[in-house]
């Protein structure tokens, strides 16, 4: 019997390539005759291109071609984003691209191009745009809704009524309610109410979204950085204006995406179209400076929450209002935020209202727990505030309100497939030593005050209905074809484990095929929403189960007896009780190739996705092939929870915060890969802390340009910003509605880390919540020293 590989630590099979320099990321590929492209970025936050004079650039030796926005198959229109535009809607938006024999010539040519721009009104703060007569991010609108540009203005009375320190709350385009919010407050013994600001944050993966493209025999070959391989081919095809069959997308390694490269990037259109135009391979190397603009960001919120609790700690009412900064092309974080709040607290009554307003700041996209991380970090300090007033332990109040598997998910989903949230909280309390550590709260040592806090963060963690595709080749090895991307989470290898375990095969006999759509990849999820682990352990489990059936049937036909009398283990199919009476996987592959039909891809299950059918057709005859759709039952919403506990020391003389200890736990179902799970969780926790601590999103309000566009001004946490040994434990209880028991983990740690940090800082300040991120040293000091705030309570981008 092969040892079960689920639940063990492995060294990912691609790690040797990563650590010897052989792993090739998008910018590491070369093609014969390759030339370079450079972008001309808008110097204004909103403008109209009146005239472009490229004559001087075109006369330059070495310049090969110029690409304008109107040459792209996908053009910028309304809230649809093109890769280039003649109406830039944020400073740094690409207007055109130049190809030249080398990058310096391309850059010099960009400098030689004269662009006449008509400045247009711009807006950075959604609230400004909501005022009557306030500026709009687009000509003719300030709101994205169902692909259409809309407009929303609130009467002046809404702003007057609110005053300077409370969120104005006019008409909300998005609204839902559960129960009766007023009745909920009537029942409450304690009510807390705050206006809260959460900043926008740039993703800044380590690898900028460089890409290289060329055409061969009418097919586009594009090397790019993506989170999802199979699903990126279609978006590249749309950008290039060709059929998916005419695209070979290669993305073997992705140097981080965090939601910013879900199915590639709009900018991939530039080398794709430019290389066709000039007939040469084109490399578009994206610099960190450019990445700041086109690399996506999390949507910021200006929010307001009013929460009621009964004396026993139960949340009777949650009234939430969010104004989202959607950037120029929209985002849907705010709506998710309302849903995520219900998965934390199960309020007896709730009202959600929200409005998403376009601004002339870099485009938003999902960023690890979009909406979820923000709302958790915004609401958790308020729960602490209520707990203090009610004199209830902060861990207890979370346990009291947390859902179990029968819980609900707003506005109209639930129950959960599994929710072992209290177990996760208990485990976390134990791991962190909550009972002892909370005694340290407020303790002063010299200039330093200790604070402790926690954050509970839920997020969606699975999906169903994807396909698995397995091949046993004549070398006797199992080839797991993965349409998912290799984005660094190790899920490319970890989701193949069920195939090894179902076939009782040793892990060293498993080969993973990935990263290139010409390698026949099955229909997959996008690597977003923490779906991958759940969706693809299921898909590969289904395919492996089908493979066992094929092996049994093939052996029975070849060797006699009934299929059910055969067993599969250790790379052989054999008669139960007699290992000698059977054949090896290598032999089975050869027999399958002779038999043809359903054994070697000649027939496939009808319910497979067309992409998988095409992949199987491409592999037909190469071995024993099993493909299957995930048809396993799922009853409820798939959610994962992470609880993080933090201990900090706040220096009351400098406002600096040092994180002394961090401990995190999760209910993400069965643990697939303990070491990797801990790393995913800790890494997400650090990213969350970065949003509240060191990363900044600051704009010059007069000119609408960002100040924080590089790592030194928008610095993600470094190795000295986090504890030396963060701790981690998992509940490790199988989700009953998925055959492997595993749920996703990518997203919820971010909100947990951010909330734990924010709550711990508030605790060090005696329970005083600043109700905004980031919490910079100067803001903390101003608050501690009772000086007037150098910013308005609802100001963003400060």
């Amino acid at each position, binding site marked *: 019997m092969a040892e079960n590989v689920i639940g063990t*630590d492995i*060294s*990912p099979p691609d*790690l*040797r390539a*990563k*650590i*010897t*320099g*052989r792993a090739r*990321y998008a*910018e590491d590929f*070369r093609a014969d005759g390759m030339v370079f492209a*450079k972008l001309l970025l808008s110097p204004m936050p909103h403008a109209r291109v009146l005239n472009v004079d490229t004559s001087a650039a075109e006369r*330059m*030796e*070495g310049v090969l071609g110029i690409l304008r926005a109107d040459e792209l198959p996908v053009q910028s229109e309304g809230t649809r984003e093109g890769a280039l535009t003649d109406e830039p809607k944020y400073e740094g938006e690409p207007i055109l691209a130049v190809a*030249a*024999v*080398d*990058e*310096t*010539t391309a*850059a*010099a040519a960009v*400098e030689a191009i004269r662009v006449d721009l008509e400045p247009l009104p711009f807006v950075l703060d959604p609230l400004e745009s909501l005022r009557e007569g306030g500026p709009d991010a687009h000509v003719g609108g300030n709101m994205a809704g169902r692909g259409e540009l809309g407009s929303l203005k609130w009467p002046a009375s809404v702003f007057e009524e609110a005053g300077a320190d409370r969120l104005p709350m006019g008409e909300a385009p998005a609204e839902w309610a559960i129960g009766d919010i007023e009745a909920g407050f009537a029942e409450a013994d304690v009510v807390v109410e705050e206006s809260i600001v959460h900043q926008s944050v740039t993703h*800044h*993966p*380590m*690898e900028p979204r460089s890409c290289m493209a060329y055409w061969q025999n009418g097919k586009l070959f594009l090397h790019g950085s993506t989170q999802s391989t199979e699903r990126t081919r279609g978006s590249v095809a749309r950008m290039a204006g060709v059929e998916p069959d005419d695209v070979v997308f290669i993305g073997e*390694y992705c*140097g*981080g995406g*965090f939601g910013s490269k879900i199915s590639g990037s709009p900018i991939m259109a530039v080398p794709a179209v430019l290389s066709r135009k000039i007939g040469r391979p084109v490399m578009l*190397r994206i*610099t*960190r*400076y450019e990445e700041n603009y086109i690399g996506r960001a999390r949507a910021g919120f200006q929010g307001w929450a009013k929460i009621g609790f009964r004396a026993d700690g139960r949340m009777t009412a949650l009234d939430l209002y969010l104004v989202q900064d959607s950037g120029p092309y929209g985002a849907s974080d705010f709506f998710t935020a309302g849903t995520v709040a219900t998965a934390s607290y199960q309020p007896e009554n709730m009202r959600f209202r929200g409005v998403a307003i376009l601004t002339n700041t870099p485009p938003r996209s999902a960023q690890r727990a979009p909406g979820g991380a923000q709302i958790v970090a915004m609401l958790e300090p308020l729960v602490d505030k209520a707990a203090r007033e009610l004199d209830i332990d902060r861990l207890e109040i979370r346990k009291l309100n947390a859902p179990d598997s029968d819980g609900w998910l707003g506005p109209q989903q639930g129950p959960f497939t599994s929710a072992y949230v209290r177990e996760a909280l208990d485990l976390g309390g134990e791991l962190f030593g909550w009972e002892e550590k909370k005694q340290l709260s407020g303790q002063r040592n010299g200039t330093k005050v200790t604070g402790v806090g926690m954050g509970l963060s839920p997020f969606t963690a699975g999906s169903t209905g994807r396909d698995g595709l397995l091949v046993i080749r004549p070398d006797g090895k199992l080839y797991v074809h993965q349409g998912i991307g290799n*984005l*660094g*989470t*190790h899920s490319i290898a970890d989701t193949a484990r069920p195939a090894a375990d179902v076939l009782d095969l040793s892990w060293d006999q498993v080969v993973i095929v990935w990263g290139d759509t010409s390698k026949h990849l099955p229909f997959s999820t996008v690597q977003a929403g923490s779906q991958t682990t759940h969706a693809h352990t299921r898909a590969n489990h289904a395919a492996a189960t089908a493979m066992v059936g094929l092996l049994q049937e093939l052996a029975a036909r070849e060797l006699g007896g009934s299929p059910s009398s055969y067993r599969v283990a250790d790379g052989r199919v054999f008669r139960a009780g007699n290992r000698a009476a059977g054949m090896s996987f290598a032999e089975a592959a050869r027999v399958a190739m002779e038999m043809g039909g359903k054994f070697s891809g000649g027939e496939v299950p009808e319910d497979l996705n067309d992409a998988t059918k095409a992949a199987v057709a491409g592999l037909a005859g190469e071995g024993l092939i099993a493909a299957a759709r995930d048809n396993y039952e799922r009853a409820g919403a798939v959610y994962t929870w992470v609880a993080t506990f933090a201990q900090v020391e706040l220096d009351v003389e400098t406002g600096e915060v040092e994180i002394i200890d961090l401990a995190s736990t999760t209910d993400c179902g069965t643990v697939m890969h303990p*070491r990797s799970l801990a*790393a*995913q969780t*800790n*890494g*997400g926790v*650090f990213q969350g802390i970065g949003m509240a601590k060191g990363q900044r999103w600051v704009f010059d309000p007069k000119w609408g340009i960002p100040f924080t566009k*590089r*790592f030194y001004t928008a610095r*993600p*946490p*470094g*190795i*000295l910003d*986090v504890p*030396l*040994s*963060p701790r981690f434990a998992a509940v490790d209880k199988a989700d009953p509605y998925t055959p492997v028991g595993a749920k996703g983990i990518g997203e919820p740690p971010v909100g947990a880390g951010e909330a734990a940090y924010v709550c711990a800082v508030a605790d060090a300040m005696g329970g005083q919540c600043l109700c905004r991120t980031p919490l910079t040293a100067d803001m903390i000091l101003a608050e501690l020293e009772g000086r007037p705030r150098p910013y308005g309570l609802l100001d963003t981008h400060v």
Partner: protein
Amino acid sequence: MLETEVIRSRRGGFTRRKFIKGVIAAGATASVSGYLFRDSGVLAPALSAQGAVERLVTLTVNGQQRRVDVPKHETLAMTLRYQLGLTGTKLGCDRAECGACTVLLDGVTHYGCSILTHSVRGREVTTIEGLETDGQLHPVQQAVIDEGGFQCAFCAPGFTMSMVGMLAKHPNPTREEAAHLLSGNLCRCGDYDKILNTAMRAAELSRSRA
């Protein structure tokens, strides 16, 4: 004038200011890292204005002598990646903020994006591709495999080179010392816990191999 800067830098360390001055003096715009100066002629006047410039240099990279044609202002990271095919050295920021391009010069860590190729003549350049000997992984590489280190791993070559440089000088660091010595590298996945586990494991492996 550029020559003076470069010579001085070789003796007395290399500052960011000198680097930027060097790039500007050589005629490139400061916002663009140039490479692959083929025959476009864009910079010919700037280059000739500097007088006789020897573009052909011999570099010692991973123990091999490599002759390359490099303009004065090209950075080592660009030369490695675009002239010598050593793409293991990554560009994460182009500006000495992230450490993805870290290489060793005479065994000491340097940011490859912030040192001019002409200034490394006569020095031993080691990149991630040069760590293996006869198919055997360097102790730091083996430690990464043992500890399952890194996630997206775009920072991995840089961190690995920093660990190699660190262990050469500090063969027995504490976890805290290792964190300080590796703080010039950034990992956006936040895999610092495993990175420090790797560093400690690498120190252990290095000692046992020594």
